[in-house]
C-alpha cells in the first residue's frame, strides 16, 4: 500500500471525505486510542497537565487526554480535520490551524508535555521546493523544545518510511537539545509502532529517557549500532515477549523487582473505554 505522505500534502490528503472516513472508522479509532494511551503511559504525568497535541486531527488522540483529566491545545494543518473536531462533542481542546514545520508559536515553558500521534512523518515530505525536510524538522523540534517546561517529556508516535527517515527524525530531535529514545511495540511485525520519547533535561543528553525500560537512547553512535543489530539474525526483537522475558531475567539477576510473568506479558494493551 502506498503511503499517504507520498501522495499529497497533508491538508489536501485530509480533505472532507478522507477526514470523515478516517474519524468514523472504528478500526482507526481503536488504534489511535491505544497509541495515545501508550503515549500517556510513557509521559507518566503525575498531575492534571497542560498538553500540546501536534497533528491533533479530528481529536481522536485529544479526547483520550481529556478523559485522563488533562487540558490540551491541538495544532493541525488540515481545515477539514479541524472542522470535524469542532463538530465532535468530546473534543474539548483549543484548536489551531497551523503547520508544525513552521515552528511552535508558544512562549518558552508553556506545556507540561506534548504528544503527537501518527503525524510527524509528514515533516519529511516538504510541500514546496523552497522548504527542505531538514529545515522543517529543525523548526519543529527547536520550537517544541522551547515550548516545553524543564523536565517535561514529549512522545511522538510516528510511521517512519525507512531507517533513514527514522534516523533523520530522531537526530533532528537530539540536535534541538532533547534527550531522545525510541521504543517499538510489536517490533519486527507489520503492526510495529514506533515512539520517539523526548525529554527536556538539563545537561545530560540522555536525561530521564535512559531510565525508562525498553527505550533505546538515540545518539549517532547508538543509532548506527542499532541498525546493525537489526540486521543480525537470531536476536530477539525488541518489545517481543521473548525479549521482555530475557530482560526481566536480567533485571531479576541484578536484584531488581519485576512484575511476575503472565499470559499478558509482552501483549499490547487494548484501548481504554
Amino acid at each position, binding site marked *: 500500500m502506498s503511503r499517504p505522505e507520498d501522495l499529497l500534502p497533508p491538508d489536501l490528503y485530509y480533505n472532507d471525505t478522507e477526514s470523515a472516513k478516517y474519524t468514523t472508522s472504528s478500526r482507526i479509532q481503536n488504534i489511535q486510542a491505544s497509541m495515545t494511551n501508550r503515549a500517556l503511559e510513557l509521559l507518566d504525568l503525575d498531575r492534571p*497537565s*497542560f498538553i500540546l497535541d501536534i497533528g491533533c486531527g479530528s481529536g481522536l488522540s485529544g479526547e483520550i487526554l481529556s478523559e485522563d483529566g488533562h*487540558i490540551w491545545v491541538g495544532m493541525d494543518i488540515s481545515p477539514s480535520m479541524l472542522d470535524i473536531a469542532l463538530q465532535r462533542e468530546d473534543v474539548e481542546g483549543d484548536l*489551531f*490551524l497551523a503547520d508544525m514545520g*513552521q515552528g511552535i*508559536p508558544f512562549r518558552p515553558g508553556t506545556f507540561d508535555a506534548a504528544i503527537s500521534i501518527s503525524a510527524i512523518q509528514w515533516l519529511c515530505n516538504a510541500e514546496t521546493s523552497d522548504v527542505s525536510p531538514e529545515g522543517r524538522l529543525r523548526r519543529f523540534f527547536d520550537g517544541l523544545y522551547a515550548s516545553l517546561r524543564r523536565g517535561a517529556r514529549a512522545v511522538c508516535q510516528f510511521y517512519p518510511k525507512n531507517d533513514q527517515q527514522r534516523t533523520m527524525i530522531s537526530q533532528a530531535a537530539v540536535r534541538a537539545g532533547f534527550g531522545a529514545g525510541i521504543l517499538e511495540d510489536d517490533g519486527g511485525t507489520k503492526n510495529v509502532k514506533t515512539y520517539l520519547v523526548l525529554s527536556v533535561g538539563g545537561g545530560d543528553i540522555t536525561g530521564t529517557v535512559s531510565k525508562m525500560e525498553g527505550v533505546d537512547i538515540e545518539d549517532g553512535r547508538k543509532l548506527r549500532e542499532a541498525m546493525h543489530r537489526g540486521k543480525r539474525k537470531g536476536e530477539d526483537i525488541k518489545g517481543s515477549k521473548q525479549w521482555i522475558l530475557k530482560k526481566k531475567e536480567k533485571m531479576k539477576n541484578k536484584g531488581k523487582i519485576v512484575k511476575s510473568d503472565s499470559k499478558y506479558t509482552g501483549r499490547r494493551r487494548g484501548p481504554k473505554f
Partner: protein
Amino acid sequence: MKLLTTNFLTCAVKTCKTSPLSFPLHFKDATLERTEIDFDPLFMRNLLPRVNWDALTTTATELGLQALVPAKNPVDVVEQSRGDDGDIDVQAEAEADAEGTTINATETNADHEIEEEILRRLHNLLLETGVVEGKLVCGNCGFEYPIKEGVGNFLLPAHLV
C-alpha cells in the same frame, strides 16, 4: 480560543521571536463565547504559576473583562506572605523551580492557601471564556491571525517563516 491559550501564544513570525512587543497578541473585533469545562483545582494550581499576569490583565482589559482579573496572581500573594515570615527559603525554591524538579512540601502548603473560590473564578475566566470570532494582532509586526469558530489560523506565508 480560550483566554488560557492566548496567555501563552506568541507571534509566529521569525523576526518577532525576540521582540517584547510580540506578546501578548492583541484581540481585535472579538466575539466572546462561554464553554463549560469541569473545574479541577489541581489543574488550576499546576497552571497558575505559569500564567503571565500582566498579559492576562492586558487581554482581559481589551475584552472588557478586567473586573474578573485579581490585581495579583494568587500564587504570588501566598508566596509573598510566606516570604515575609522569613521561614521559607524563597531563593532555594526558585532554584528548584528553575531546575524543573518537583517541589517540596512548601508548595503543597501554598496550594491549600489559595481559596477554592478564587480558583473557581479564574477557571471560569481562563478555561471557560474564549473568543469565537475575531483576530489576534501582533504588537510588533502587525500580522493579523484570524479566529473562526474558535480556531486560530496561525499559518504563515512562506516569506515570514
